[in-house]
């Protein structure tokens, strides 16, 4: 294959080279793809290809961070995006590597399985002529006659060996089939893992939803903040359970004073009532991080938490135009949370409040109002106000930010943008008779992730089988022992034993010596 054209043409009497037809090339490509060397290169390539996914933010994991990164790198960002650096594990080049590896693996493992089955069923090979040339060799004289010596050896080999005696005086024995069985099991189980992941991807679904304390959620696609169903999932068929968050307890570190630990989360507990299907009995359940709730057809995980403000807004007519828990999203470890209160029903103009909810509020000189501790010790809101059209063109944007394109900022009496500082229980009058806002109370919310993966057990069991196979393939030794017994003129017999092993086996000679010692102490 590597012969250069010159080498062929300069030969005086050209040898007819075997030409490869299309089938020949296919066979050549297949042989190369399924060779160990290719597998090795693909493995190393896979390792390199997985790298970028840990360096650049990934859209599937954190879309916001990815968007921020691209915005911050206007030249490189779009180029990297084109190359798939933000979706590494879904790119064609990454898929190509692992699919080739999969094909290479199958092409290697399936024929090997056939050969292995033949070995397991077949007889051990014949005893070689020159036993002393094997990797380990030992020769002993024993008092027993040849038949008895063979029987002794068979007993000494024990049950681990499969023994085959020919002609009454030669013996071939094999052990360690589990090594190759394990090896094959490992590789086949890897396929099981990949199949499990694929089934989970196609038939599984996941959704995230924020539920403030006191609110309920019923499991239909429309109620999720985000839902990503697999391609073959009918979102109209989600399991019909519902839940209510009654209470949420959060504990933060306030004893250890070190910068690194102070304010770190210690415990989150959500108290829920779940209903398996409409009409079924309510069940009180406790949801914690690391302790998901298993429902029929889905699992509920506690992945986040934060604060919501119970707010009442009255408009210029004095009518209550907004009342309810408004979710704010935490922006830092101390839960400085941002959000927006949108009041489309206000007269004469729609109102939009924006700003921060601070669970332990402090006004600093440099940073303005911030939260200094994640627990709600001194809650306050710092808000600004816009008026105008909240959803221009009918497009509803993010519920956490205002689209101020068609809105104007509301100023205070001094002509500066209005700043509202409001604590629970307080009511603030809006300028020029626009109405008022009341901060009733702070409640926590639970960030729930609800998932269904129909193939997770397949993946788990496949990976455990892979581990078992790996252990067998690495730890079991595949050995062959051959023996020839010849009668001695003076009575008794000479037993010659030789042994072979697959791969390194530094203990082989010792093993053989022990075996020999057992028949000729």
């Amino acid at each position: 294959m590597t012969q250069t054209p010159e080498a062929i043409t300069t030969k005086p009497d050209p040898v007819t080279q075997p030409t490869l037809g299309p089938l020949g090339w296919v066979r050549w490509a297949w042989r190369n793809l399924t060779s160990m060397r290719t597998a090795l290169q693909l493995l190393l390539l896979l390792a390199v290809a997985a790298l970028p996914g840990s360096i650049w933010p990934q859209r599937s994991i954190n879309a916001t961070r990815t968007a921020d990164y691209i915005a911050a790198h206007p030249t490189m960002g779009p180029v990297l995006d084109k190359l798939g650096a933000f979706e590494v594990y879904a790119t064609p080049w990454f898929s190509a590597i692992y699919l080739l590896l999969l094909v290479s693996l199958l092409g290697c493992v399936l024929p090997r399985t056939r050969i292995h089955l033949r070995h397991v069923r077949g007889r051990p090979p014949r005893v070689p002529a020159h036993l002393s040339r094997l990797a380990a060799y030992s020769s002993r004289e024993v008092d027993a006659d040849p038949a008895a010596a063979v029987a002794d050896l068979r007993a000494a080999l024990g049950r681990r060996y499969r023994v085959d005696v020919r002609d009454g005086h030669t013996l071939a024995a094999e052990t360690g089939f589990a090594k190759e069985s394990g090896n094959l099991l490992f590789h086949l189980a890897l396929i099981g893992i990949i199949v499990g992941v694929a089934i989970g991807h196609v038939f599984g679904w996941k959704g995230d939803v924020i539920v403030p304390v006191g609110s309920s959620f019923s499991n239909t696609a429309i109620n999720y903040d985000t839902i990503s169903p697999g391609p073959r999932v009918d979102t109209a068929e989600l399991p019909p359970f519902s839940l209510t968050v009654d209470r949420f307890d959060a504990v933060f570190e306030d004893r250890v004073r070190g910068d690194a630990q102070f304010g770190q989360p210690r415990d989150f507990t959500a108290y829920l009532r779940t209903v398996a299907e409409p009409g079924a009995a309510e069940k009180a359940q406790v949801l914690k991080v690391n302790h998901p709730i298993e429902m029929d057809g889905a699992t509920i995980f506690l992945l986040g938490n934060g604060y919501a403000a119970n707010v009442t807004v009255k408009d210029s007519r004095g009518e209550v135009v907004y009342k309810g828990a408004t979710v704010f999203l935490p922006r830092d470890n101390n839960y400085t949370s941002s959000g927006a209160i949108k009041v489309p029903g206000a007269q004469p103009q729609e109102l939009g409040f924006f700003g921060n909810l601070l669970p332990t509020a402090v006004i600093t000189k440099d940073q303005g109002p911030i939260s200094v501790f994640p627990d709600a010790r001194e809650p306050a809101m710092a808000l600004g106000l816009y008026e105008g059209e909240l959803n221009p063109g009918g497009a509803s944007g993010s519920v956490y930010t205002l689209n101020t394109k068609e809105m104007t900022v509301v100023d205070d009496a001094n002509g500066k943008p209005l700043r509202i500082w409001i604590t629970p229980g307080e009511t603030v009058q809006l300028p020029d008779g626009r109405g008022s806002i009341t901060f009733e109370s702070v409640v926590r919310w639970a960030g729930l992730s609800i998932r269904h993966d129909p193939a997770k057990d397949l993946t788990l069991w496949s990976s455990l089988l892979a581990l078992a196979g790996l252990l067998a393939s690495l730890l079991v030794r595949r050995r062959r022992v051959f023996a020839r017994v010849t009668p001695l003129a003076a009575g008794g017999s000479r037993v010659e034993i030789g042994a072979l092993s697959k791969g390194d086996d530094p203990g082989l000679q010792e093993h053989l010596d022990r075996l020999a010692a057992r028949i000729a102490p």
Partner: protein
Amino acid sequence: MTRETLEQYSLISLYSAIVVLTLAMLGFVLYLSRSAAARAADAVVPEPVAQPVTVGGGGGALTAEPGGTDMPASRDLSRARKAAGPARMFTWLATFLVGCSIVLRGMSVHRPPLGNLHEFVAAASFVVLLGYCLWTLKRNVDWLGIFVTTPVLLMLGSATTFWYTEAAELMPSLKSGWLVIHVTVAILATGVFTLAAMMSLAYLLIDRAERNPDASQGFVGRLRRIVPPASDLERIGYGLHVLAFPLWTFTLIAGAIWARQAWASYWNWDPKEVWTFIIWVIYAAYLHARATTGVTRQKATYIALAGFACIIINYSIVNMYFVGQHSYSGV
């Protein structure tokens, strides 16, 4: 005793371990340099003593230095051995001190001390040291001492400086029985991989000296009197990798099981997960390379060392600078 007091004692114990281990390292350096400097004529004495069954006996081939103390070894070499004795004792003492530090830390925080990088590295150091100390009981592996004490000193140094974290309770996602399972096995795997990488490094050095007649007169070349032949080193290195690889596989699986409980999905392409996977793939490539005819043992060993380089990156750069769910609190 209060949490702070116990934390202080734990730290003092770790500092003491660093001091003692530095002494051990100096002892091992002295041992190597004296052995290398031993007069050539003396060195001939031990060489020709053939060992009848070095092929068998598993790790028995480790001891290149023939015979025990009763051999008429050269004066220079026995002088060298005098430095190794105290070095071994100091290593034992350091191991004990690191063990004390871990226990005190655990008492301080009322939980298994496996919750952050500081605790992880202290425990991994303990595994490496204990593994080496137990090995010295069975074989003469004094020549390996320098390869063990140096990386462990670097690990302990980092654990007490950049990676130091105040003793505290865990964050909610770490409060799980899987912490002990996943992290303990990860620590064992890391410890064994460290020993394996050091053995591989020694193999490459000795192998070069063996193949290059010029180099055999250099420092490394002269060390061949006390270090086993390259082929043995390679085989032991392989054996250690074979031990560590399933442990790493289990770390990956246990991590995935835990991830499903704590983060709702068994695989999230979190940077740490990605690197654990990369490391797994590289070591898998090493095992394949070693079983492939046509790939030299040297090349295979380079792959294994690349895997170890990734382990170092995984615990330093990935933990500290890549944003992900494995970010250790407090660093």
